[in-house]
């Protein structure tokens, strides 16, 4: 794609990077075929190619974004299916992130938008606040019909029926391996996940220590910054990301780390991008070190000797989170591990498509998100599984709110199959528990 940025404009590192990305696009339109919003809305401007044109126009002319441009960019899920599809290697993620930061700086959103985004940025990344907000939302849910804003109603709808108590396993500490140590890894315990589902980190710690890893929860590490990053709030996302970099770099310089393990794939995509996010920052070297050893839990488990399990008769529908399959290009590991542990793995027909969760997307764009959820649940249930597995808490909440099938994290199943307790979600009230127990 031809661009006409001036030399002065290209002095800005963000614009320079945007220019490189824009010039790699050949307008072929393959991306439209796998863009969930284009499939739902059918508007070229709601496809990656359309958004690229809007972003190019906005950045080249240094114009104040108009409501139309903002609407179409806001509607992007950042699922990154387009990056998997693109034959030219357009790095859409960096482009849309830059566009969002530009919009945040130059566009004056309606007050309700600003208030909502401020609220989400102030609550979601902080587990205690989020937990209190969930409790408050449970109180407000009976009055949801009186709430005028569809987005606030969507928030009330997304509140889970049960909110787990705090798990002190998420506090800074070290867990010793249960057999001779093979690796020393830092576990990213996350933010929203600590309020929504404490079983995932617990299962991860059990599984990794059982397989010979010392698991460290580093002091000072917390939210990866993705939630605010995707809202264009660069200063906030960089501040939280910097705390993680300090925390993990200290561990790397201390007793050393073989890996930084992430069991929320949305966070994994962001942590792996710290090197880019901080490329112009004094923290660049440490950020690059952190990114270099960051890996999804499934990537680490492939390096460890997960015992083979006999066929346990349970059919698992594996939902591939966009951030894992498109953002990190980790496509086969979770399925390979589940099969090795003795599960029969099936996939929905539209496994490449987003479920509509996408961070805060299901709260900000509830209509499009609901359509994507309905479609995803239908294709997952069509496989008649005993349960659904995913590698991202956002997807689990989204799909779980639309199906009676139990939904668990991949790591919970692997923990169960190798000697851990049965995932609590399999026996939760209102869910159809699988009838066949796992054989160990």
């Amino acid at each position, binding site marked *: 794609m031809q661009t006409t940025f001036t030399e002065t404009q290209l002095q800005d590192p963000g614009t320079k990077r945007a220019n490189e990305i824009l010039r790699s696009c050949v307008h072929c339109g393959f991306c439209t075929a796998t863009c969930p919003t284009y499939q739902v809305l059918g508007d070229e401007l709601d496809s990656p190619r359309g958004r690229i044109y809007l972003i190019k126009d906005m950045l080249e002319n240094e114009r104040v974004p108009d409501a139309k441009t903002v609407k179409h960019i806001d509607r992007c899920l950042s699922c990154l299916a387009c990056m998997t599809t693109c034959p030219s290697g357009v790095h859409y993620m960096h482009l849309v992130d830059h566009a969002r930061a530009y919009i945040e700086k130059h566009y004056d959103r309606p007050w309700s938008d600003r208030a909502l985004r401020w609220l989400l940025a102030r609550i979601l990344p902080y587990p*205690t606040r989020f937990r209190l907000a969930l409790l408050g939302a449970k109180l407000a849910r009976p009055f949801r019909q009186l709430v005028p804003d569809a987005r606030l109603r969507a928030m009330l709808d997304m509140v889970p029926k049960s909110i787990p108590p705090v798990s002190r396993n998420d506090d800074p500490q070290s867990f010793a391996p249960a057999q001779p140590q093979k690796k020393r890894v830092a576990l990213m315990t996350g933010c929203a996940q600590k309020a929504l589902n404490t079983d995932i980190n617990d299962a991860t710690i059990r599984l990794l220590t059982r397989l010979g890893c010392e698991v460290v929860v580093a002091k000072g590490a917390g939210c990866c910054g993705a939630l605010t990053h995707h809202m264009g709030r660069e200063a906030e996302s960089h501040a939280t990301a910097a705390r993680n970099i300090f925390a993990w770099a200290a561990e790397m310089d201390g007793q050393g780390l073989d890996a930084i393990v992430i069991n929320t794939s949305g966070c994994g995509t962001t942590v792996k991008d710290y090197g880019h996010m901080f490329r112009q920052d004094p923290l660049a070297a440490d950020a690059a070190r952190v990114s270099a050893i960051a890996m999804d839990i499934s990537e680490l488990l492939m390096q460890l000797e997960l015992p083979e399990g006999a066929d346990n008769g349970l059919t698992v529908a594996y939902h591939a989170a966009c951030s894992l399959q498109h953002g990190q290009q980790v496509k086969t590991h979770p399925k390979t591990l589940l099969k090795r542990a003795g599960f029969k793995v099936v996939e929905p027909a539209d496994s490449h498509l987003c479920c509509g969760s996408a961070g805060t997307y299901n709260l900000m764009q509830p209509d499009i998100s609901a359509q994507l959820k309905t479609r995803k649940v239908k294709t997952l249930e069509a496989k008649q599984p005993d349960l659904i597995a995913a590698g991202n808490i956002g997807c689990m909440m989204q799909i779980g709110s639309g199906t009676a099938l139990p939904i668990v994290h991949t790591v919970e199943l692997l923990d169960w199959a190798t000697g851990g307790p049965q995932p609590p979600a399999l026996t939760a009230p209102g869910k159809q528990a699988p009838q066949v127990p796992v054989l160990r």
Partner: protein
Amino acid sequence: MDLIALFLAGVPVFAVLALVPQARAGVFLGLAAAAAIWAAHQMLPPVTGSDAAGNAMAKGFRAFLYASAAGGGAAACLFHLTRIAWPAVGSRGARIFRFVFFLAVSIPLGAALLVFWEEVLR
């Protein structure tokens, strides 16, 4: 209902402590009540024990009940402090407004204390 109780535990604590006639005694008693309830909250046992790397769930939602109640004590302390700072609030209406204001403050104050404790002090 149980959820409502979680949020409103500070209200009766405040209502009782606000009746202390001496402002200085009220400040002391409010602070002492808040500190005592918070200390009790810290001594609550975990809900499901503490097996290594599994389900060391902290203190369940009882913890929040205690935090809410401590918020009532803290609100009473603030209420009495305003009595010391502005002893001349004369009209009955102004005094009722002050009482109602701090009664309302006692509801979210426990949550605010909990957030401060978890995010800043821990």
